[in-house]
């Protein structure tokens, strides 16, 4: 019940936010929030630390950008094609990576995503270092002109809510329960008769597709796809967002993404930024988070609320 009230309040906040805050910035936050939610589905609920999620995010951005710019297809098709491409890549990467566990899993995803990165660096359609520029925003469903920031914002918000809902549904479903069981004790899940590899693979593909959706959305919002999106720094950034917000909580990644993007944006032009570079500030925050509040912002808050309720 609390959850429902909280979500309604957040949704209302999301609806009025563009009147107070610059919409393009909000859209960027939403894209990264969706990306972090997708990542959290894998790390927080299936216990799989992928260090190659930037590959899916970047691939979908390029595919969507290419489809919209060169083929001239409508915006929604661009998003769908981008998402499917990321899902397909997720299937290939996932099928290989889930054969190993722990650090080896992370290393395989990292290695494969670096291969994808170097492919993008060389492939002619991505524009290499210069990136893919001038992606048209187009019209949504042929009616809504997305050149207006406000119109685009509501489309992005709707897509984000749909993605978020999907993650929530997945986590709450029996499938999600099995994932949690695998996270807690994989041999026991196997002994109970679950084919854990299949569960892991489905979770991986789902997560990759959602990360792709976020990447495709971002290329529409910012009208560009750049090599930075596929770089391993981006894989690290999404880990940071998730841990900072609270791994394994539903809202954590959203809060984490908002914090990181806001800081990047704020430090880029603030007076503090000219003394201490933005990456250093982010690094310090990350270290503090790992040392002092390991459950992340949302995790700590939730623990606090729970404690107080028990006491009261």
């Amino acid at each position: 019940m609390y959850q429902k009230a909280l979500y309604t309040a957040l949704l209302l906040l999301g609806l009025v936010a563009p009147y107070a805050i610059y919409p393009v910035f909000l859209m960027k936050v939403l894209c990264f929030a969706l990306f972090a939610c997708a990542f959290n589905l894998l790390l927080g609920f299936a216990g799989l630390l992928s260090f190659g999620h930037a590959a899916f995010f970047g691939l979908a951005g390029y595919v969507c950008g290419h489809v919209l710019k060169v083929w001239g297809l409508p915006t929604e098709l661009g998003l769908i094609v981008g998402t499917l491409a990321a899902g397909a890549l997720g299937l290939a990467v996932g099928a290989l990576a889930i054969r190993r566990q722990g650090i080896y899993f992370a290393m395989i995803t990292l290695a494969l995503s670096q291969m994808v990165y170097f492919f993008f660096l060389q492939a002619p359609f991505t524009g290499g270092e210069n990136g893919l520029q001038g992606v048209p925003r187009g019209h949504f469903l042929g009616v809504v002109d997305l050149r207006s920031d406000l119109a685009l914002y509501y489309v992005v918000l709707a897509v984000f809510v749909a993605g978020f809902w999907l993650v929530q549904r997945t986590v709450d479903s029996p499938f999600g329960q099995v994932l949690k069981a695998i996270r807690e004790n994989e041999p026991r899940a196997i002994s109970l008769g679950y084919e854990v590899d299949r569960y892991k693979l489905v979770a991986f593909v789902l997560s990759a597709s959602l990360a792709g959706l976020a990447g495709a959305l971002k290329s529409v919002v910012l009208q560009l796809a750049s090599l930075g999106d596929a770089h391993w720094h981006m894989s690290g950034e999404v880990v940071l967002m998730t841990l900072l917000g609270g791994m394994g909580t539903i809202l954590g990644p959203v809060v984490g993404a908002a914090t990181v993007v806001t800081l990047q944006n704020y430090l880029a032009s603030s007076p503090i930024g000219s003394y201490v570079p933005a990456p250093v500030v982010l690094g310090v925050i990350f270290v503090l988070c790992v040392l002092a509040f390991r459950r992340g912002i949302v995790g700590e808050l939730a623990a606090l609320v729970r404690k107080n309720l028990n006491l009261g």
Partner: protein
Amino acid sequence: MHFARTLAATAVTVALTAGAAAHAAISDDAVKIGILTDLSGTYSDLAGPGVVVAAEMAIADVGGKVAGKPVVLLKADHQNKADIAANKAREWGDVEKVDAYVDLVTTSTALAVMEIAKQNQKVVLISGAGSSRITNEDCNPTTVHWTYDTYALAKGTGSAVVKEGGKTWFFLTADYAFGQNLQKDVAAVVEANGGKVLGAVKHPFPASDFSSFILQAQASGAQVIGLANAGSDTTNAIKAANEFGVVQGGQKLAGLLVFISDVHSLGLPVAQGLTLTTGFYWDYDDKTREWSKRFFDKTGKMPTMVQAGVYSSLMHYFKAIEATGSDDGPTVVKKMKETPVEDFFARNGKIREDGRMVHDMYLAEVKKPAESKAPWDYYKILRVIPGDEAYLPLAESKCPLVKKS
């Protein structure tokens, strides 16, 4: 009565014209300059905080006011990420009403901001980014590319070195589009001038160990080793070449994208003998020394061509605003293109219809430690390359703004 009517009519006319003039004049009662540069990363040395100082000097030199309105300076660290640059540029355009975006260090950030300027008609004054795409296939009406481009650097170094007797070349090429294009451009120039390319080796980007590539280059027997790379790749390659005694062995190194800040960090013992092309050198004549001295007093470093270019481009921009009384992007850039550029930075400068500021470039050789008499006394200017010779001829341009006759 009659007189009164005339008076009233005159008053109305005056009021209307004044109103119209005010409308065409400075928007939001301020000229806002937004510097987007690398304040924290790899390129912060060649651009970064020094660019901000150069811009502050330009603003101070016009008394903080242009056309009677104050100049406001905003700055942001684009962290060499196209999405941060695009986001900031859009926000500055919509919310802060910035009139001009300045500097932009990597090509991807420059192209991203140019896309936004295409939509909101703001002025883009690019100094840091180097791709010749900016004024070639991606040119747009309100972008001016000020300091240099890769074509001019490649052409300057390539043709001059061949003329100086460096007939056979071997390339160390960064294995991505930028490096390959650079190699292609230089190889074409070398061959056109009667030189010969003996071979090339591609190195991963970015790389830190250049020893095997340098050995290959050494074994090739070429007179000149062309470094078709940039930034830390170039400095690492120069360091490796120094360790293997390439220059002492009689081969020449040609840097295709080297800034004075790179030479400063390498030091003369390592960098000596390197041939390069630059758009500006502080110790060229009295005018460059005078300005650079002022810059040095504020920063403790001599300016790179990017930093000097930012000052020069802003002064030209301010002059155009002063002359037109407007800060409307297309109007100002039109005026900038009509006015020749002649200051401490640019000799025989003019802005072409494609947005390229064409000015004289300099072929330089890095001095031996014994030849250097003072700190920052690094370059020997071998030749002045006239602008029209250095930059891509308009006849070969793919820019749609260029009218082909």
